[in-house]
């Protein structure tokens, strides 16, 4: 075994950066960007080294990638068996995630140096970015589910802070609030899931939990509740947490609003890393899901499937480019969920798992690219609305090319990375669940359509009147674009099944042409439609939208989910629970207390007549009191 102690620094460097920049950032001014970037760069290099050492040097023991504890110490002892550790678990998926996170984060850091240049709170931005990176890294290397939960929450908070970066903008504030509360609600499910799980298995530890021969998985056959085993329930609850973070239906509503944050943040958090935490969570517990709670896994699959369709449909109608991308993210994560949902445990049966992780990996690259590209566009034209854009290709050449690459990638054009990953998800779906397969195929088409709708609207189409000529971004911004474009192109060639599989045993994956071809065709078809509709300015889109006016309206309004939530929170919770509770407290509970004193006062006032100042009345009370007392004592207390 190798000494992986240095991995600790991957986590600690961002933390140190956060503390440094957070507490003393105002003294560094512009330097803070460079500091933060440098720190992340070191972490990135360390991650790459870790990946190399794990995958190629030490990790593979006898054909299996063993999980390794690089570091572990007890953080909080709860019961004899349940203790929260803080540690670093290295196994294929965590190492992969380390690479993904540090890569994207590093790129975003570089990019932000340019993008955020003129912002106030420059240091604060980098501090938060570091905090986020730290939390996200902590999440992926968690050795136990509770450590994961801890960093999960931290991730949520950093996301909150970053979404609310423009804290003077009310929309940003409410978006950040919404994001936090919705995910918090989901985390409640996560927490309950953890409680149930840990109660049954008596452990938080991932290694013992996912040990397929271990006692934890065997617990699955335990007592049942409403037809599902307790284990299944607990995993469904856990998935609720994942669904919240990963913006799965119906907990997705925070994600589009989260685009209020600065664009690099959207790229890092709300596209590449944090939102896949849910996927990662399910993948982490995959053996438990697959063996003990297959129904739970089905739920994951269906939720993912529906979310991806749902999001894709909405994406087709949105005009805010970041929102389109946000729904696209949601849709793509749906894919990943589907991949997990249709997977089984072990070997080739675990194709879906592998594919899902693969897609996660490629998605991180191209989606970050898309967002950063979008950021560059916004940077150039100072608007998010695609209706106010057009013909940008000649002003922003680098952005244009990299954006096109990303669009092609997401559309699943062969030889680009997402083609491979998406294709494998579809393959796995095809073998396990035909319904999901066809839906996903359709979504693939939709994806291509809405991405190219965006592409054509922005880079081609009619050029509106710009206030000032858009210009290409500085190098600090274009370098990450180019780097990520390269990644998007070539990431697909990594033989993923050799490294990341459901049972950590490498296997050979083969491409099934019977599935690859239809998906490509569907993708191309989508591009074609988009080309027809949006290459030049036509009335076609309007006509179509009026043709399907009802459906279009619903989709445009995101199926009124925001309104529904608003109704639930504002009307039900605030007006029908909180207000009444507050009222009840003031008037009933407090009223009772005040009432007691009021009654006392009243009585006190009423009986003052006894003290009339009249001697004879006193005597009368005296005598009648005496007689009364005598009567009571003699006759009421019968001896």
């Amino acid at each position, binding site marked *: 075994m190798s000494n992986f102690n240095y991995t600790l620094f991957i986590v600690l460097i961002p933390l140190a950066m956060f503390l440094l920049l957070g507490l003393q950032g105002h003294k560094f001014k512009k330097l803070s960007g460079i500091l933060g970037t440098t720190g992340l760069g070191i972490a990135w290099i360390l991650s790459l080294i870790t990946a190399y050492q794990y995958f190629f040097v030490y990790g593979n023991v006898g054909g299996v990638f063993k999980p390794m504890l690089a570091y572990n110490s007890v953080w909080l002892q*709860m019961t004899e068996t349940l203790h929260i550790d803080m540690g670093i678990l290295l196994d294929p998926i965590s190492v992969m995630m380390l690479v993904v996170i540090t890569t994207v984060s590093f790129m975003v850091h570089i990019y932000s140096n340019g993008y955020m240049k003129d912002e106030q709170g420059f240091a604060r931005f980098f501090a938060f970015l570091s905090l986020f990176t730290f939390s996200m890294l902590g999440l992926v290397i968690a050795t136990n589910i509770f450590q994961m939960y801890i960093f999960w929450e931290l991730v949520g908070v950093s996301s909150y802070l970053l979404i609310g970066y423009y804290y*003077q903008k009310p929309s940003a504030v409410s978006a*950040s609030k919404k994001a936090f509360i919705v995910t918090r609600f989901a985390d409640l499910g996560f927490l309950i899931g953890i409680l149930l799980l840990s109660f049954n298995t008596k452990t938080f530890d991932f290694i013992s939990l996912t040990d397929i021969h271990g006692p934890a998985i065997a617990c699955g056959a335990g007592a049942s509740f409403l037809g599902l085993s307790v284990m299944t329930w607990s995993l469904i609850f856990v998935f609720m947490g994942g669904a919240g973070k990963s913006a799965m239906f119906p907990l997705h509503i925070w994600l589009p609003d989260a685009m209020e944050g600065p664009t690099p943040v959207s790229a890092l958090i709300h596209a590449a890393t944090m939102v896949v935490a849910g996927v990662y969570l399910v993948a982490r517990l995959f053996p438990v899901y697959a063996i003990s709670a297959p129904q739970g896994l089905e739920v994951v699959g269906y939720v993912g499937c529906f979310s991806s369709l749902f999001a894709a449909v909405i994406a087709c109608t949105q005009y805010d480019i970041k929102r389109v991308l946000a729904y696209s993210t949601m849709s793509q994560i749906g894919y990943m969920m589907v991949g997990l949902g249709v997977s089984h445990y072990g070997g080739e049966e675990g194709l879906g798992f592998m594919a899902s992780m693969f897609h996660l990996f490629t998605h991180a690259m191209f989606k970050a690219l898309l967002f950063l590209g979008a950021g560059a566009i916004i940077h150039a034209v100072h608007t998010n609305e695609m209706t106010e854009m057009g013909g940008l290709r000649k002003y922003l050449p680098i952005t244009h090319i990299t954006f096109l690459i990303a669009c092609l990638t997401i559309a699943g054009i062969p030889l680009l990375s997402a083609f491979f990953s998406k294709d494998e998800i579809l393959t796995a779906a095809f073998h396990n669940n035909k319904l999901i397969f066809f839906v996903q195929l359709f979504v693939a088409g939709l994806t291509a359509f809405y991405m190219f709708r965006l592409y054509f609207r922005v880079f081609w189409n009619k050029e509106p009147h710009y206030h000032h000529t858009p210009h290409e971004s500085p190098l600090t911004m274009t370098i990450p674009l180019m780097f990520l474009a390269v990644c998007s192109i070539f990431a697909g060639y990594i033989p993923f099944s050799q490294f990341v599989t459901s049972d950590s045993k490498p296997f050979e994956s083969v491409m099934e042409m019977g599935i690859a071809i239809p998906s490509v065709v569907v993708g191309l078809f989508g591009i074609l439609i988009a080309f027809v509709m949006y290459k030049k300015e036509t009335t076609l889109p309007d006509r179509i939208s009026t043709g399907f006016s009802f459906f279009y309206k619903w989709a445009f309004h995101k199926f009124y989910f925001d309104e529904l939530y608003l109704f639930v*929170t504002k009307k039900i919770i605030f007006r029908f629970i*909180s207000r009444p509770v507050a009222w009840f407290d003031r008037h009933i509970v407090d009223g009772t207390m005040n009432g007691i004193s009021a009654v006392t006062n009243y009585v006190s006032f009423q009986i003052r007549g006894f003290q009339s100042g009249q001697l004879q009345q006193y005597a009368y009370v005296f005598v009648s009191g005496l007689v009364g007392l005598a009567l009571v004592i003699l006759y009421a207390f019968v001896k």
Partner: protein
Amino acid sequence: MNILSLFVIIPLITMFSLMLTKGFKQARLVAAIGMGIQLIMAVVLVFMYLHERNTGNTQEMVFYDSSMWFPSLNITYTVGVDGIAVAMIMLTAIVVFAGIFASWDVQFLTKEFFISLILLASGVFGFFICLDLFTMFLFYEVAVIPMYLLIGLWGSGPKEYSAMKLTLMLMGGSALLLVGLLGIYFNSNPGGTQLTFNILSISKIVIPMSAQHLFFPLTFVGFGVLGAMFPLHTWSPDGHASAPTAVSMLHAGVLMKLGGYGCFRVAMFLMPQAAHEMGWIFLILTTISVVYGAFGAIAQKDLKYINAYSSVSHCGLVLFALLMMNKTTMDGAIIQMISHGLMTALFFALIGMIYGRTHTRLINEMGGLMKVIPFLAVVYVIAGLASLGLPGLSGFVAEMTIFVGSFQHPDIFHRICTITACASIVITAVYILRVVGILLFGPINNEHHLHLTDAKWYEKTSTVTLVLAIAGIGLAPLWLSNMIGDSLGPIMTQLSNAF
């Protein structure tokens, strides 16, 4: 002399020195020095305690000392601490220290203010070091009564009403408590002759069940009033809202903990059988407290009210955890007390500081303060995050310990209560974020607030002390948890024998 007695003597000396001071500058300096020494003593005590334990002292209470006071009634002045008491003393010392600095600006009758404040503190310290029911009760009341003047004289809003209500309700609690204590006393030696108030001695015997059925509820409710148990919590919102900064801090931060600590140390420790039999009633009430307080907080407009209801919720969680009656939850309950003590003190400190600048506590009348008073705003956010249970801050440790522990209870009723209580973490998030959003973020909506000044050095001292403590517990909870956990042995034995 016993080191523990110093915790009462130092405040007394400080109070006497305060009487001799002239002018508010001297007074606050003396107070700060006195309570600074107290804080140092508390730290020393922690180390001494840990040293004792490490050197193999396995007594239930260390630094135990007992001297007779009223021989004929066997009332003694008995002191002794275990890990829990040490932790509570530490908490108190921190909060009082922070409280002194938070009230650096008090210039109206400064001397009297600090004397009352320190008198209150000495009551709290005395309560925690004592092991004799009589002296505990004495200190308990000593701690409660200065509240009246503190709120009435230096408070704001409907202070007279609130002060009266608070005092009377707390005294009402202590009325029930008194009967409970007497009941325990007269049942403290079945068959024997010598009755005792000594907790340790009483814990060795089994109080007859008929007595327990009568006195457990009395004692529990008695302490529960101070612990803001539903529906006896209504002193809390008004009281806190009207109290001056340091008093809110001390009261919510420390005094309310006397309730939880008392429930734990007296009601449950001495009457475990009744705790088992009757716990469910209070469990329902505390579960309601937890959720109810949180919902109540959402609808409030005044910062202090929000925090007061939040305290109801959090303190409800303390009692809730105690009633779950296993080692983990008890551990969690104590940590929750400390955690809540620190963060609510921080909250009140900040609210006071903000109020001192903006002269309003209605959140709707403020906005965008982050821009003008970034330090306070950031600390406010930290406090908020601690309150909603962010990992790395103390609240998380406490809540999670409680939830995990509670869930170990196999009974379905307890499970339902647990899950209901868990739901509070979402509601907490809602109201905390609501406040933060309105208060600190967004545009500045009141032009008077454009030129506020940020925290002064003493305000920074006050808040940073608390933040450090919160983060310290949040980041490295193990030592605290172990210190508490080691001391839970006797009560756990009591409770498990009670089955």
